[in-house]
């Protein structure tokens, strides 16, 4: 009975694939790519459960179970740097995610096409400047004695703030400079989405007497909703990631307690280069978490607006 039914189902499935054979043809090379270049090497993840050495190779190195993870979690600084990573990533998410959307919306309100293009082009310039250079620049900009930012604060009657040397301010600096660097670049995807909104919709709304705000609420934002949703879900996957280049070029010993993150700690320990098992275990730990978070946010999104990654 069941055999017949499953065979019928199999036949049904084959039939369904045959029905969209052109789509299968389109998809096949891409899927082959994923299998060859992404799934064949995936056995490398076993390094996290092995005492890896070059002489034996990945396959023949001895299994050690969860020992590597135990070692990782037992390291006294691990949880501190992991917490810093998550806190900084969460702040970056909370403030950094809306920034490019707001920028795109504001740019959209600019009427002169040439001015709009110019602003757009300039706003993405910082994306191309490396943190090595920016680290030195911010150090001077934010200096409590000679930096222009504190000059303004002093002129307004405030006390100078040691932004990079004060643990209370350091995370804020990371978030703010991160936004400054990437908001322009990040707004590109939203500008692309904005450009595909039907201009007739705006015209119709204007005839109805809708103001700027009403148009944004009733036309612009709903049109952006799908792309915002997907970007939001993808961004939640970054909640366990840190930006090594940024932190490394801006932190110092005085802000270790709030600014030392997983990648900088691993770098200072020199283990990343030499201890593959430990580095792989850490990567796996982060990625499993990221995966779980994305699954969750995807599920929530699907419940709210029937939209998700899968």
């Amino acid at each position, binding site marked *: 009975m069941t055999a017949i039914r499953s065979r019928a189902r199999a036949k049904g499935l084959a039939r369904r694939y045959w029905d969209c054979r052109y789509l299968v043809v389109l998809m096949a090379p*891409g899927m082959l790519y994923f299998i060859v270049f992404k799934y064949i090497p*995936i056995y490398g993840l076993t390094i996290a459960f092995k005492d890896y050495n070059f002489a034996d190779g990945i396959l023949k190195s001895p299994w050690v179970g969860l020992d590597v993870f135990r070692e990782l979690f037992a390291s006294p600084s691990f949880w501190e740097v992991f917490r810093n990573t998550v806190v900084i990533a969460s702040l970056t998410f909370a403030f950094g995610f809306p920034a490019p959307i707001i920028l795109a919306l504001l740019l959209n309100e600019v009427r002169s096409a040439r*001015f709009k293009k110019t602003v757009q082009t300039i706003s993405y310039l*910082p994306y191309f400047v490396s943190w090595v*250079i920016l680290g030195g620049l911010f150090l001077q900009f934010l200096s409590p004695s000679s930096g222009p930012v504190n000059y303004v604060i002093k002129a307004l009657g405030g006390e100078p703030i040691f932004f990079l040397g004060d643990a209370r301010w350091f995370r804020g600096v990371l978030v703010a400079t991160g936004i400054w660097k990437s908001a322009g670049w990040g707004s590109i995807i939203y500008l692309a989405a904005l450009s595909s909104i039907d201009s007739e919709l705006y015209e119709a709304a204007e005839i109805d007497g809708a103001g700027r705000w009403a148009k944004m609420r009733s036309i612009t934002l709903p049109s952006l909703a*799908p792309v915002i949703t997907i970007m939001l879900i993808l961004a939640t996957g970054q909640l366990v990631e840190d930006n090594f280049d940024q932190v490394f070029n801006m932190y110092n010993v005085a802000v270790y307690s709030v600014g030392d993150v997983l990648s900088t700690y691993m770098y200072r320990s020199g283990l990343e280069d030499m201890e593959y098992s430990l580095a792989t275990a850490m990567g796996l730990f982060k990625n499993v978490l*990221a995966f779980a978070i994305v699954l969750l946010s995807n599920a929530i999104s699907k419940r709210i607006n029937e939209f998700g990654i899968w």
Partner: protein
Amino acid sequence: MGRIGSTRRKSGSPDAFGAINGAFMVLLCACTLYPFLFIVASSLSSFNASAGGLSLIPRSFTTDNFARVLSDQLIYSGFENTIVRTVLGTGLSLIAVFALAYPLSKKYFPNRGFWTALIALTMFFSGGLIPTYLLVRGVGLVDSPWSLVLPELVSAYNLVIVRNYMQTIPDSLEESARIDGANDIAILFRIILPICKPIIATIALWVAVWHWNAWFDCLIYITKPAGEVLQLVMRRIVIQGSDQLTEMLGRGMAMQQDEYITPEGLKAATILVTTFPILCAYPFIQKYFVKGVMLGSIKG
């Protein structure tokens, strides 16, 4: 900047929001333009610009930094290799992404969830550097430009975004073509891709910039000097520049400092030389954001 370019504004009242918005944009430009101008100043300075504070005026003007950067023979082959990988990588990546995204955007595609998940999983789990190198070496791609294109051909991240964009296109658009007997591939090219112009431009920009800036894969997969990409050549000029004099002292070579080259100025010059071409490409892509084909025009 409250210049009113559009004819649609009915009232002649001053546009307060537009003025504030414009002012904000100008401020934004000033903030973001500054580091770039600082780099330009550094590249033209014969002293370390940072030692002169935050000034945007070069400290004692020189073009020696650029002369040194452009004197390295490898940067010409580097430019060529970078252009090859960027064009090849972006072109193939676009084809692959859109060919994958279209079937996966169709609700009726069998096991759609499974196939999507299979791809999305690679955003989180990968085998790492060593098995990937073994694979690339195993299929004989070492020292071939394909080793810079194939291993990262399709980004699952881009794929998800494109598929999502395609899902927002109403099915009704395809129906008339289907009645005319067009197959899925024809529909993709005739109907879907024209609508997708803005997202094609976005993904193309992302992939092209990624390829333009990538160098680590080249360190691993390319072993011959002639195959090096631009960023790698530039990176080396910078590293050499930082320790050239200490090196000379260590090697017992007389110091020959006729040119005024500072490590910082050298670095600034390399950044400008490498970023300039990709910055020039932006305006061409930008027009697709502004003049993206409107959904409505097709609907109507």
